[in-house]
């Protein structure tokens, strides 16, 4: 798959491309070759059926049986040996018992080259299991790539099956979950396979913002295939068994002469801590699937649905006295924003997104009085909670997801500003910081903001301020809304003058408190921290009927 993309791009890529294709061939060969090795009795009998005089019903049953077997017992065992579950086991675990309704069980690949047309190389259902089901009673569409059939490689038929359920998910308005475990393109099919990828990409893009799309990478996902997860809303990975990369270590070695392992290049740790490609990683298949079920509970089925409300055992007017002392008196001292979030949300239940990437901003889902909310918070514990390139991008994408799917956004602000420095400027902090600003500004879902401490400079504006149509903006008594910290401000205002310390004290007295913002109405109220949960719950109740529409446009032009 990479091959084709490189070829298409430039002739120079051809060499690399060829190398990849060679590699891919070997990999897929592994699939194909082992399929030719001792034919299982099942396959032999399959061939026999085709010439026998079995009834149609019997043939249907036999095909179904064969489909359930995927690539055969041997392959299933090999899959298990790798610590991975089979495509069907995964679907079974993900969905409510007996809720899975499968489609296209009889679809087979259409390739007639390289001996693929032979019966022993045909597998009912091909290398993906598709259908719909329920998670805690709620509708979801699922595809699960089957590594036991040609290494889960993507054939035209495979792509067609995925497209079919995506199309239906769109018409019905229900999320799509993809369980990725695929060696890549079906080399034997060539361009057919590439077309298949593109068909999926297109649907990913069309569905974006209409229905939630979630990818769980449970095995290899390389080359062009990575762009499907990249287009979906959330990408989760399984530690040690899943990889995402454009080109594998061999190609990297030949092109850039870098020595790198699969794990280092595209493992779960890399993507959840360094690249920010994946949103979370889980220990193994089971934990990943169970967590996915939990995560699904937070999401609405589509952009036509409100954020779901679940029965809550946590009273909405619960006071949280521990918050009264959580912000340290010294404004330079750190605290953990997660402590505030856990204390405020229902049952301390917070599903954090990208917990190990750009940790200076915390984003994730929680519930307030049962209703799903998106939480964004600066994290004073990491890099003082400043905004930098990575945290801006992380926050922006999350805010846009919430806005697209009617999930109210609660923002906790303690931000000293944007991170200065050449690395940031050269990296384009202006462009990337603008994304977060853009996302907050265009969001029309209920927006509640709580300034816990610092809200300095442009970062104050960005963090869901009143000026960006914040619905309810609160300040804690510890809030300091100002252009900058006292020291810096005094150095500018009283440049060259003596008595800087006195001036600083005056500045602190004047500006390092919530009043300047409160007297101007930039915050709606200064509240006791202990009452924060109660207030937010009341406000969300009121804002449930919020209606706000942005001017008509084909689409906005967010600074990408």
């Amino acid at each position, binding site marked *: 798959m990479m091959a084709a993309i490189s070829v298409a791009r430039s002739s120079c890529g051809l060499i690399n491309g060829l190398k990849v294709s060679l590699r891919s061939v070997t990999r897929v060969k592994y699939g194909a070759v082992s399929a030719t090795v001792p034919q299982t009795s099942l396959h032999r009998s399959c061939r026999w059926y085709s010439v026998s005089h079995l009834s149609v019903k019997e043939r249907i049953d036999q095909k179904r049986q064969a489909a359930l077997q995927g690539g055969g017992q041997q392959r299933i065992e090999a899959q*298990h040996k790798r*610590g*991975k*579950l089979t495509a069907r086991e995964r679907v*079974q*675990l993900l969905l*409510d*018992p007996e*809720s899975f309704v499968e489609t296209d069980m009889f679809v087979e690949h259409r390739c007639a080259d390289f001996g693929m047309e032979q019966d022993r190389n045909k597998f009912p259902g091909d290398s993906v299991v598709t259908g719909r089901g*329920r998670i*805690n*009673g*709620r*509708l979801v569409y699922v595809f699960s790539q089957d590594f036991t059939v040609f290494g889960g490689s993507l054939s035209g038929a495979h792509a067609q099956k995925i497209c079919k359920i995506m199309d239906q998910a769109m018409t*019905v*308005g*229900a999320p799509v979950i993809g369980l990725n475990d695929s060696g890549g393109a079906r080399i034997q099919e060539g361009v057919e396979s590439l077309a298949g990828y593109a068909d999926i990409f297109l649907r990913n893009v069309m569905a974006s913002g209409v229905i939630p799309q979630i990818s769980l990478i449970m095995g290899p996902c390389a080359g062009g295939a990575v762009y499907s997860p990249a287009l979906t809303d959330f990408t989760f990975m399984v*530690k*040690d068994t899943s990889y995402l990369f454009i080109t594998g270590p061999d190609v990297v070695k030949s092109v850039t002469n870098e020595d790198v392992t699969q794990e280092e290049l595209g493992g779960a740790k890399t993507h959840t801590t360094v690249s920010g490609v994946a949103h979370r990683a*889980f*220990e*193994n*298949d*089971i*934990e990943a699937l*169970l*967590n996915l*079920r*939990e*995560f699904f*509970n937070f999401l609405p*089925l*589509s952009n*036509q*649905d*409100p954020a*779901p*409300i*679940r*029965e*809550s*055992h*946590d*009273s909405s007017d619960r006071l949280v*006295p*521990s*918050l*009264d*002392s*959580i912000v340290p*008196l010294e404004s330079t001292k750190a605290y*953990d924003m997660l*402590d505030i979030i*856990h*204390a405020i949300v*229902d*049952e301390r239940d917070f599903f954090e997104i990208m917990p190990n990437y750009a940790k200076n901003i915390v984003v994730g889902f929680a519930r307030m009085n*049962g209703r799903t909310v998106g939480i964004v918070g600066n994290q004073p514990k990491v890099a003082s909670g400043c905004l930098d390139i990575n945290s801006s991008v992380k926050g922006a994408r999350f805010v846009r997801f919430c806005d697209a799917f009617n999930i109210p956004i609660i923002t906790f602000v303690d931000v000293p500003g944007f991170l200065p420095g050449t690395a940031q400027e050269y990296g384009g902090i202006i462009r990337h910081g603008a994304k977060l600003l853009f996302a907050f500004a265009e969001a029309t879902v209920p927006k509640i903001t709580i300034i816990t401490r610092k809200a300095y400079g442009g970062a104050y504006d960005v963090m869901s301020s009143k000026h960006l149509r914040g619905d309810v903006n609160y300040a804690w008594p510890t809030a300091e809304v100002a252009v900058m910290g006292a020291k810096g401000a005094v150095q500018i205002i009283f440049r060259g003058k003596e008595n800087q310390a006195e001036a600083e004290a005056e500045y602190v007295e004047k500006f390092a408190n919530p009043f300047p913002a409160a007297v101007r109405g930039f915050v709606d109220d200064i509240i*006791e921290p*202990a009452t924060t949960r109660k207030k937010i719950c009341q406000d969300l109740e009121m804002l449930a009927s919020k209606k706000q529409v942005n001017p008509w446009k084909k689409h906005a032009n967010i600074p990408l």
Partner: protein
Amino acid sequence: MTLWMIGNMAAHSVPSTLKRLLFAVKYSPLQSRCCAVQREAQYSTISIPSEKTFDKILIANRGEIACRVIKTCKKMGIQTVAVHSDVDSSAVHVKMADEAVCVGSAPTSKSYLNMDAIMDAIRVTGAQAVHPGYGFLSENKEFAKRLAAEGVAFIGPDTHAIQAMGDKIESKLIAKAAKVNTIPGFDGVVKTAEEAVKIAQEIGYPVMIKASAGGGGKGMRIAWNDEETREGFRFSSQEAASSFGDDRLLIEKYIDNPRHIEIQVLADKHGNALWLNERECSIQRRNQKVVEEAPSTFLDPVTRRAMGEQAVQLAKAVQYSSAGTVEFLVDSKKNFYFLEMNTRLQVEHPITECITGLDLVEQMIRVAKGYQLQHTQDDIPINGWAIECRVYAEDPYKSFGLPSIGRLSQYQEPLDLDKVRVDSGIQEGSDISIYYDPMISKLITYGATRAEALGRMEDALDNYVIRGVTHNIPLLREIITHPRFVSGHISTNFLPEVYPDGFKGHQLEADAKRELLASAAVLYITAELRSAKVLGTQRVASTPVECSHWELCVELGEERQDVEISKSGTVYTVEMDGAKVEVWGALNLASPLLPLTINGTQRMLQCLSRDAAGVIVLQYLGTLFKVRVLSKLAAELNSYMPEKVSEDTSSILRSPMPGTVVAVSVKPGDTVAEGQEICVIEAMKMQNSLTAVKQAKVKSVHCKPGETVGEGDLLVELE
């Protein structure tokens, strides 16, 4: 009533007066209930309102004891001044006091031991008296002198008594002279190791070596032979020099299997002295008390009287005034020997208050003002039985308690239970820091009988919610339910004898294990059923989950158990191993407390965490158990999941293999970045570079180049 309302409010930490009012109103029914009981049982002192003491008292302490003193001051209508370090500026004692003064930075030597700053605070606030609490400056004669010089009353004994009793050698001489039984083989200052051995041999082994100036168990070593004596001498003298700046030691006969029983005395400045019965403090770890009770199961009235009278003799001999404690060691034949006298309010004073009905702090304040005692010896009763557990932020699984620190993310005292008293100085959101004692609170229960008090303690421990720090409730609950403790057959060696291999938590019997697993399974089902309940109208209808029968697999440690659950009404029947467990109760998924009725017995469990992967951490019978509940399918498939070594090696670097250290690239205090080389180990002709897995400061380095290390040896610790 007032007293307890304040106490409760402190626990809820509401700063504004308005809030206080609201709270008081909200919680008053509950409080008045427990107050009524408590007032009756605890401080039934005849208060004489006209008796004027002080207008304003400064409390030179922090934490629970500062709060405890403030409570009595409020009751007596005395203004209070708290002192605090900078990190304590929003501590409970600061909020409770009428005024507060910051006396320095976090380290105790810079704040709570900073006499200059405290003297300044006294001057600024105009406090007329100082209550020192325990620890810190409570037995510091210098402090008492400085107060006297400024004409400020010290709520405690006079300087000479502090001095006389503060020195272990001198105090024994005085005790001997006052005809108080002292430990045989008592001797003086020791200069060298050989001298120590000679003395030890004269006394006869075993002997105990400790610093003269040290209180409690500090600097105390037990030697059974010459070699250990030398070692103990070396160690104790070093510790004495570093901790007390005074390297004098003493060596005395070590009493094997002793009980630690102390007598509370109360004396006034007019030569009157009373003994307020004993406290049994034998349950100790590393010579620090953990569980105390009053009275002792061991003493008969004759011994009690003898001990009490000797304690009073000693108090009179040093012209003691205020509350004090005379500690004795009691051997199995009820011979008792004077150990030391503590010239302050003891940590465990509440149990004495519970059984005598006196408010010791009030008495101390009265005495300091110069009033005569209100009681005679015949007025001092033993009303019922009281037990105190010291709840510490520490990990009991490591040598019965190594300190842990953290933020109390959730904290709920079992104050809604009858006849439970909690003396604490923290609240939800408080930090347990490295700077101070890791005690969370003193949990006191009382009743007409010991059994009643113990039963209550069990309930109180089960109802006590502490999250965010590791605590010793598992150990406390094991102690108070252990048959040896219940029978009263205890000594100071109780813990090492009962748990020779260290504390391992509650060992579940088959029945209890079934109850635990059943509870976890029921909780799991409750959460599952709730997940399926989506409220509001839905565009795409949900498929209702109408299930009343489940097959699950529950794992506890290595064990796996298939269980079948059926629900009828609100009752869950859990079947496993052919046995049935019926569970029902308030299954509130937001509450840390899980009051369940299991097979007809009421149990208070606590749920610490519940995750998507089925892991449920429950506190059951005091101990935390990690249970994993999976559907049968998930459990079957789980067998394919590879075992992953759970490693928290982020702050500890251990040698991954036996080898030779080739190079160490860091030294303590260095900051290392993630991936930075820490050291190189050569093994099997390969040089392995060991790197930091996180950015951190190097705490300590335990290896040097050229050294041979074994697999798993600690190389470097990060902070």
